[in-house]
């Protein structure tokens, strides 16, 4: 039992009746004299207070798992039945930035997950990297992978998780050459003007009219004097999906990402408009509209439709 569950259980007034196995714990044995039991309980409560009441924090590790319709992500697998025409393709990249990760506590309040600082996590942003730079991913990928988010929340019980897919505007248009990791990762930065690719899921397609169908989701309509200049105002189309998953068991649930669902509504055997695939350009609505719809985003406006609740890419698995 994790600390979060234990604390949640102890905080529950019905604990004495339905706690997991009170007779095995010794302290709570019903055969104990009532007074001793009370002392033991009060000690336990003191312990809880010491940890929870005085602003203690709980370490949290969120596990992510990307798949292609349930099959594990690999840079050397040919996946079938992709998109509207059941195409066969290999993954050539599978990375994304997420940010603003929050958990919902028992008061229905969303609490920020304070991220540990690492090469994958900085300033509230995490790079998830499911490709290992081998096989079809060799053209752009990196050997390193990252499938977890680590951080802390105040002790308590939590039953839901939410996050943004993308990098917040204030951090999105920095110079990735001089920015700290993970912002200096190669292959995820467009330009100062365009900022980062929030989602990169590239496909090498077999037997279609195009050899490659790339999904690069990021902000568009960013106005600046040159591609080498950061925009002063937020981009017209933010293109950042919101994900909310509930009920969520922090200890057992894995946050699943289905890269087949991302392109389920697209025909990846052809490219309706350049560039190949959907690279978020307003000039490629036929390629991008179904991809953005899978993220819950209205492609024309770049905003969530109905809070992105209709997204089909992000789920949970136990």
């Amino acid at each position, binding site marked *: 039992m994790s600390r979060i569950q234990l604390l949640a259980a102890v905080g529950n007034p019905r604990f004495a009746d339905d706690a997991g196995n009170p007779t095995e714990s010794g302290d709570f044995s019903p055969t104990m004299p009532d007074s001793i039991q009370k002392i033991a309980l009060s000690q336990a409560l003191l312990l809880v207070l010491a940890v929870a009441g005085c602003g203690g924090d709980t370490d949290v590790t969120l596990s992510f798992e990307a798949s292609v319709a349930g099959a594990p992500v690999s840079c050397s697998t040919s996946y079938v039945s992709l998109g509207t025409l059941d195409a066969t393709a290999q993954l050539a990249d599978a990375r994304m930035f997420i940010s603003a990760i929050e958990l919902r506590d028992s008061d229905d309040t969303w609490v920020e997950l304070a991220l540990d600082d690492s*090469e994958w996590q900085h300033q509230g942003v995490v790079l998830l990297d499911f490709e290992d730079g081998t096989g079809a991913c*060799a053209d752009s990928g990196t050997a390193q992978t990252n499938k977890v988010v680590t951080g802390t929340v105040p002790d308590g019980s939590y039953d839901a998780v939410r996050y943004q897919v993308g990098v917040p505007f204030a951090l999105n248009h920095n110079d990735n050459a*001089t920015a700290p990791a993970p912002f*200096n990762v*190669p*292959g995820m930065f*467009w330009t100062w003007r365009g900022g980062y690719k929030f989602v990169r899921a590239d496909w*090498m397609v077999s037997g279609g009219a195009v050899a*490659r169908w790339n999904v690069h989701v990021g902000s568009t309509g960013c106005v600046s004097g040159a*591609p080498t200049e950061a925009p002063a105002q937020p981009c017209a189309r933010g293109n950042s999906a919101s994900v909310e998953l509930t009920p969520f068991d922090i200890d057992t649930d894995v946050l699943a990402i289905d890269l087949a669902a991302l392109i389920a509504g697209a025909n990846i055997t052809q490219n309706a408009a350049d560039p190949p695939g959907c690279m978020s350009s307003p000039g490629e609505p036929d390629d991008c509209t179904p991809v953005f719809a899978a993220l819950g985003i209205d492609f024309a406006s770049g905003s969530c439709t109905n809070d992105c609740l209709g997204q089909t890419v992000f789920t949970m698995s136990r």
Partner: protein
Amino acid sequence: MTTMRQALCPLILLSLLGCGGDTDGDRAGPAGFDIPAGFPEPKIPADNPMTAEKVELGRHLFYDKRLSGNETQSCSSCHEQALAFSDGEVTAQGSTGQFHPRNSPSLTNIAYNATLTWANPVLTELEEQLLLPIFGEHPVELGATGKEDEILGRIAADSTYQRLFARAFPAETDQVNWDNIVRALSSFVRALISGDSPFDRFAYQGDGSALSPSARRGLELFYSERLECHHCHGGFNFTESTIHAGSVFDAALFHNTGLYNIDGNGSYPSDNTGLYEITGRSSDMGKFRAPTLRNIAVTGPYMHDGSAATLAEVIRSYEAGGRYITEGPYAGDGRANPLKSGFVAGFTLSDGEREDLIHFLESLTDATFLADPRFSNPFQAGGEQ
């Protein structure tokens, strides 16, 4: 780092401050370095920290023909400053007349290379790479093999070198040895940092007039999803194959750009198979490291084998999504190379747009770098500082 900063040469610091005016621009990095605005700090091996004294010794060695077996060539023979330390030849010719299968690469910003040479994923330190041109026998470049002691004797007998070695390696008693020669040469080439082009003045120093209208249009084309140039030639150093002191992700990237397709299965000429030569993996055929585009206008002919004479020729190859060679031993349709990078899909440019793109590439030429006296031949009149 502390020792490097403590060792910062006051003269270099002065010259850094003097060339400024752009207060948010250049900053003093490790000794011997001039780190331009927008550039991260380079990655320096812990066992060969930069010092101005090593850079100066390395500069002498770089230009010294006594370093070759037959005293006919120096490093600078194939890496001329005016050509951004490339040589203008299709492929390089060594000191004994043998030809190298590869084009001499520019040494511009080589301190930031994720990997060295045109296609070797495991060659990451200059201290290792330098052994190839000095001692290599297939082909012979400087041809020092078999004449190691003789060459050391030439250097050790020179009073200028006695002074330079003593300054560069003050803690050692017997300083003139190959390890120290390699350390000093590595330090010198690491100092070859170029970041003062018209593009830099435009992008990093806020000079909106540094680029012509045509180059400005070319810049927009370069960074467009239509052309995709920046996928492989992105970042401050115009190559994704870049690392620096803050890098944590590997960037050993290699691409097949569809230059050849001799057998229809993607084959490249047998003496230039790229990454395949190292890994033996068939999927690595024809993969080469994307070079920096800085100073690209002066480093032709282009590609790993010098097989493209001009920038226009290179751009046309990318426009077509590969190169179609109609006759000769290397005939084949590179556009249909099955191992070609997905980003070499082709695009259409008008003549005017192609000209704009070339003007943008020309704006990456750093005239200061090409004539910087700190990197010049110390043996030529006026070259000595």
